[in-house]
């Protein structure tokens, strides 16, 4: 392929004839050069196109020429001169582009803003209603399946237990351990001023048992398990696997949602327990290394000064967190539309909603137990 020649044109106007003479190569790679100048052309009379000097021509070139001819005159142009495919191509392009441009309605700024506000509000309302509907449907399905355990899909429950429970254990233990260390360090710095470093034990005990162990578990699950559930179900939705399921008489609620909900309700307390123990271990470590509190003394003090109630307060939240994470994940997964973009945006929504819900629910629990005096 030789280097393309620069496209050129000349417009010659005589008394009642206008001739557009084109030369050089008019292809998708070259037409930009003349595009601006061509748009500026004006004429009124009948136009003739002379293609005798034309080199290579493709549809892009033909389109630009045809557009210019239309712009010059309403009447169809005559084409003169010899060229391999000019007449054919320009004709082809002329035929397909001979339609009226659809006009778009214009919008004012204020009206647009009001419209968006209203739409946003209505979306929020319908979102809440849908969430409640989904919650109800999930509860009904799950209870029905729990009462008829032979209909449960044990294989998928075990598989979810493994990937969302067992596989999440190391990361939760690791993170809780470090959170325990951080709390112990910060506590020790403040308590040292009061000369009562040994109270770090109570600090760690209350914080990890009651709040941080289960909270860290919830957050990790919201980031890790929640996103993977949404992506799994969303991909199935995108590829119409869920539609296929329904036509085969399988209910997505039974097959996809219930096993995940049940597995998470079971797995989260175990994970929270591991997280709590790891967090306390972090505290023990800091106490031992930095504060000269012997591990035996630490555990002894923990047992005598931190009531068992605190452990149960923390543990009671775990199944709720697991349930909420799985519920949000499944709902957003089922909401995915047909495009990759919606999969991405639903996964983001899912994770954000899950973390948000966990923190809000934790606050509600805190108020509840405070009122109860525990």
């Amino acid at each position, binding site marked *: 392929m030789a280097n393309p020649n620069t496209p050129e044109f000349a417009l010659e106007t005589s008394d009642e004839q206008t001739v557009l003479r084109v030369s050089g190569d008019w*292809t*998708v*790679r070259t*037409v*930009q050069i003349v*595009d*601006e100048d061509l748009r500026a052309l004006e004429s009124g009379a009948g136009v003739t196109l002379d293609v005798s000097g034309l080199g290579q021509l*493709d*549809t*892009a070139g033909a*389109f*630009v020429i045809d*557009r210019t001819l239309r712009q010059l005159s309403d009447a169809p142009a005559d084409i003169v001169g010899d060229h391999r*495919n000019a007449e*054919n*191509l320009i004709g*082809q*392009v002329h035929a*397909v*582009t001979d*339609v009226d*441009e*659809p006009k778009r309605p214009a919008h004012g700024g204020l009206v647009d803003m009001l419209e968006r506000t209203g739409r946003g509000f209505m979306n929020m309302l319908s979102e809440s209603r849908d969430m409640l509907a989904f919650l109800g449907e999930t509860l009904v399905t799950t209870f029905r399946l729990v009462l008829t355990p032979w209909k449960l899909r044990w294989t998928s429950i075990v598989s979810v237990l493994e990937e969302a429970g067992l596989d999440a254990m190391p990361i939760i233990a690791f993170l809780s351990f470090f959170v325990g260390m951080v709390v112990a360090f910060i506590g020790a710095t403040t308590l040292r001023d009061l000369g009562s470093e040994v109270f770090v034990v109570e600090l760690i005990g209350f914080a990890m048992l009651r709040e941080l162990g289960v909270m860290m578990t919830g957050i990790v699950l919201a980031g890790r398990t929640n996103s993977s559930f949404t992506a799994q179900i969303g991909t199935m939705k995108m590829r119409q696997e869920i539609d296929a399921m329904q036509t085969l008489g399988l209910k997505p609620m039974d097959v996809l949602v219930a096993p995940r909900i049940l597995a998470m309700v079971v797995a989260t307390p175990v994970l929270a327990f591991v997280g709590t123990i790891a967090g306390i271990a972090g505290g023990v470590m800091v106490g031992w290394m930095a504060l000269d509190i012997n591990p035996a003394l630490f555990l002894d003090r923990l047992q005598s000064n931190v009531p068992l109630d605190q452990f149960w307060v923390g543990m009671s939240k775990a199944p709720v967190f697991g349930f909420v994470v799985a519920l949000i994940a499944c709902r957003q997964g089922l909401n995915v*539309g*047909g*495009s*990759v*973009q919606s999969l991405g945006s639903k996964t983001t929504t899912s994770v954000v909603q899950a973390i948000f819900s966990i923190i809000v629910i934790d606050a509600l629990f805190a108020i509840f137990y405070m009122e109860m005096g525990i």
Partner: protein
Amino acid sequence: MTDDFIIRIRDLKTAYGSHVVHEHLDLDIRRGEIIGIIGPSGCGKSVLLRAITGLKEPAAGSIEVFGKRLETLDAEERAAVERSWGVMFQDGALFSNLTVRENVMVPMKEHTELSPQLCRELADMKILMAGLHADAGPKFPSDLSGGMRKRAALARALALDPELLFLDEPTAGLDPITAANFDALIRDLQRALGLTVFLVTHDVDTLHATCDRIAVLGEKRVLAVGTIDELRAFDHPWVQEYFGGPRGRAAAGH
């Protein structure tokens, strides 16, 4: 010599692990023809397309496209070759986060210096040329039907006016009327633009309506190449059954 043939495949071998798809495969494709590739399911029609377009590395043998071997080219030359072909994948492979018009504009933005305005105008023209209505431009691929998606994919494949067009089962899954329109469209475009078309298909009607020559793949190589009439006389059980079966006879009837 290389001018007559736009693609030359010699002694090609492709394999996935120990599973050999092609072995000792030779095929020449002439400039300006529509060649249909047929063969039983799983015989490696799509793999051959992937091998020619460089998506699947051959285990042995050589493939020359435009007289050049792809694996010997540097990045710039390779991009030049890639600009001169268009590929339409089986289920469209449109970018689902872009509208149809943006999909068609992707190769233009990447490979040319067209202004955004001209880009848009050209994309709209390609969309119309592929037989879609103008209002399909701002739609997302997920809003289109299967047939419209195929047309949109064709519009994207044609975006840079390629010399060589690869079509992977363009009419699969379309109703007979839409499929016939699509055949006519391919034929028209091929005539108007002087394209060479590499057409993988199962559809006997498409072969009748569009192809100059047909290559039959099977037994890991090209069994036969020729016009429909030549192949009809070709003595091979699969080929005989293909053209002699109820669908093959029906297609020959008109």
